[in-house]
C-alpha cells in the first residue's frame, strides 16, 4: 500500500511485477491440464478482475491506496452491503426484491421523525426503521409466498408504494433539524471503524455462517434450487420464502436509518436506485437469478468490486455517465462469464 505514495515509475514497476507473476502462474501448473487451469480461472474470474482493477487504480493514482481512501470505500459500501445481504437470500430462493431502495427511504423518513420526537432515545429511531422495514418486507413475503404474485411484480409494487409513503410521511419535504444525537449513531467509532462499517462486517460474517452452517441456510438454497424437492423433503417452502423477504426488509430498514443518520437528513429520495447496485453485487458475486446458486462471500466480493470501481473512477475523475456505462458493461460481462462457465461444467 505504501508503495503507491512513491512516484509513477515505481508504480509502473509494481504493475510489471504483477503482470510477470500472472504470466508465471500458467507454467507453474503445467503438470495440470489446461482445462484445470481454465476452470480455476473461471471460478476465480471475479477475484482476478478485482485484483486487476485494484492494480490499475494503484498504478494510476497515489491517493487510491491510502488507508483514508480504504475507509471511504468501506463507508460508501456499508448501506449497500446490508441490502445486498438481504438481496442474496432473496435471489437464492429464485426471487428478487426491487423494493429495498424505497424501503430505505421510508425507513429513513420514519426513523428521522422518531429521532426528532425522542432526541434522548435515538435507539428508538433505529428500532422504528427496522420495524418499518420488517412491515414492508413482511408484506412482500406474504404477497409472494401466500398470494403467489411473482416476486418481480410484488416488490415492484412495494417499490412504488414505499416511495410514495416516504413522501407522504414528510409531506413531500425532507425531515430536517435532526438532533445531534441522531447523527452521532452512524459516526460512532468502534476500533476506528464507524458503526455502519461494523454492521457491514458483522452482517457479512453472520450471514456467511447462517448460509453455510445452519439448517435455515441449507433450506434457503434448497427452496431456490428445487422447490418441489424441498417441499417433498419436508421443508416449509412458503415460510422460507416469507422469511427471506422479511429479512431483506429489516436490513433495508436498518440501512435507511444508518444512511439518514450519516447525512443527518430524513430525505424521501434516499436510497433511490440502490436496489440495482445491490442486485448487481449479488449477480457479479456469482449468484444465479434462477435461484439455488450463489454465496454471501460472492456478494461481498461483488459489492467491494462495484464500490472500488466507483471510488477509483471518481478519483480518476471519470465523468459519472461514463462510470454508469462501465458498470453496466461489467454486470453483463459477469453474468456472461457465469453462464459460459456453467455450461462448461460437467
Amino acid at each position, binding site marked *: 500500500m505504501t508503495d503507491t505514495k512513491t512516484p509513477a515509475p515505481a508504480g509502473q514497476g509494481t504493475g510489471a511485477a504483477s503482470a510477470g507473476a500472472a504470466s508465471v502462474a500458467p507454467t507453474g501448473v503445467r503438470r495440470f491440464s489446461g482445462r484445470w487451469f481454465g476452470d480455476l480461472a473461471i471460478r476465480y474470474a471475479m477475484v482476478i478482475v478485482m485484483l486487476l482493477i485494484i492494480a490499475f487504480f494503484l498504478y494510476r493514482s497515489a491517493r487510491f491506496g491510502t488507508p483514508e481512501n480504504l475507509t471511504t470505500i468501506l463507508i460508501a459500501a456499508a448501506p449497500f452491503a446490508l441490502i445486498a445481504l438481504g438481496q442474496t437470500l432473496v435471489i437464492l430462493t429464485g426471487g428478487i426484491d426491487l423494493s429495498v431502495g424505497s424501503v430505505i427511504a421510508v425507513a429513513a423518513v420514519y426513523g428521522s421523525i422518531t429521532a426528532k420526537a425522542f432526541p434522548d432515545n435515538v435507539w428508538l429511531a433505529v428500532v422504528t426503521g427496522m420495524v418499518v422495514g420488517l412491515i414492508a418486507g413482511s408484506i412482500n413475503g406474504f404477497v409472494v409466498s401466500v398470494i403467489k404474485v411473482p416476486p418481480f411484480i410484488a416488490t415492484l409494487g412495494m417499490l412504488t408504494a414505499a416511495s410514495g409513503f416516504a413522501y407522504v410521511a414528510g409531506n413531500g419535504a425532507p425531515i430536517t433539524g435532526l438532533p445531534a444525537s441522531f447523527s452521532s449513531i452512524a459516526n460512532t467509532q468502534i476500533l476506528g471503524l464507524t458503526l455502519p462499517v461494523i454492521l457491514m462486517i458483522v452482517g457479512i460474517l453472520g450471514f456467511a*455462517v447462517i448460509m453455510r*452452517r*445452519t*439448517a435455515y441456510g*441449507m*433450506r434457503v*438454497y*434448497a427452496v*431456490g*434450487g*428445487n422447490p*418441489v*424437492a*424441498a*417441499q*417433498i*423433503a*419436508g*421443508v416449509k417452502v412458503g415460510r422460507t420464502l416469507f422469511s427471506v423477504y422479511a429479512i431483506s426488509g429489516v436490513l433495508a430498514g436498518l440501512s435507511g436509518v444508518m444512511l439518514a443518520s450519516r447525512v443527518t437528513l430524513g430525505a424521501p429520495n434516499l436510497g433511490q436506485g440502490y436496489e440495482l447496485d445491490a442486485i448487481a453485487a449479488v449477480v457479479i458475486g456469482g449468484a444465479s437469478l434462477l435461484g*439455488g*446458486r450463489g454465496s454471501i462471500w460472492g456478494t461481498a466480493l461483488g459489492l467491494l468490486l462495484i464500490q472500488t470501481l466507483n471510488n477509483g473512477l471518481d478519483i480518476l475523475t471519470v465523468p459519472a455517465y461514463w462510470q454508469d456505462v462501465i458498470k453496466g458493461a461489467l454486470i453483463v460481462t459477469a453474468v456472461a462469464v457465469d453462464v459460459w462457465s456453467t455450461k462448461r*461444467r*460437467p
Partner: protein
Amino acid sequence: MTNTQPSPHTGTTPAGDFILTATDIKKSFGGVHALKGASMTMRRGEITALIGDNGAGKSTMVRSLSGIHKPDSGEITLDGKTVSFDNPNAARNHGIETVQQNLALVEDLTVWQNFFLGREKTHGFGPFRTLDRRVMRSTAEGMLKDLAVNVPPVSSKVRRLSGGQRQAVAIARAAGWGSKIVIMDEPTAALGVQETARVEGVINTLRDSGVAVLLISHNFDQVMRLSDHIWVMRAGTAVAERRTSETNGAELVALITGAKAS
C-alpha cells in the same frame, strides 16, 4: 413387526402379514375422479408392483400413500393401525418413504445435504444451532455403503452425479431412515441399461433387508424380474392382483387394457 404370525405363503394370507392395506380410496381433482374407490395391499418383505396405463390412477394412489395428497375418503392401515397423513412428513414419520419419479433431489446441494434436508442434525442451542456436518456426512456415507451403492463422495454436489448415481442416492435416502415401506415411482425410467441393472440390484438389497417396496413401473420385464406380487389399476380402481410367479406379460397387458376381466 412384533405381531407377525409365522405363516406359510399360501394364497390366503392372514391379515397380519399385510404391512399396508388401502381400502376404497377415493380422490378427485375438481371434476376429475382420479381414484374411484381403489383398494390394494402390500406384504411384508416383498416387492409389490403397481401397474396400469397412463391415467389409471397409479400416481394418485402413490401420492395418497406418501402423504402428498389427502384422499377424499377411504382407509389406510399400516401394521394394522389406521393412519392418515396430512403431509409427506407425517407419512415419513410412520415409516413410509418415497422415491419420486422426477428425482426429488436438490442439484445445488451436496449428497449429504440432500440426505438430511428437512431433518437436519444440528448442535448448539436455540437460534445458535449449527449443522453437525461431520455426523451427517458419515451417516450419509454409511447409508450409501449399506446398499452397496457405487458411492459418490457425499460432499459432491448432486449436479455432478450421473442419473444412476442420483437414483441410488434417492433410494439410499429413502431406505436409510428405518423405514418400513419404500415407494418407488419409475425408479429406472431415465436410466441406461447398466445403471438400471445397478439400481435394480439396490432395490433387491433393500427387499432382502426386510423393507417392503412398492414399485411403480411401465417396464413389464422389470416388474416380472423384481416383484413378488402385482396389483393392476385401471380407470381409477385396482382391478386385479396376481402373484408374479403365477402370471405373465400377456395376461398383465390384457388386465391393464381391460381385454381380460379380472
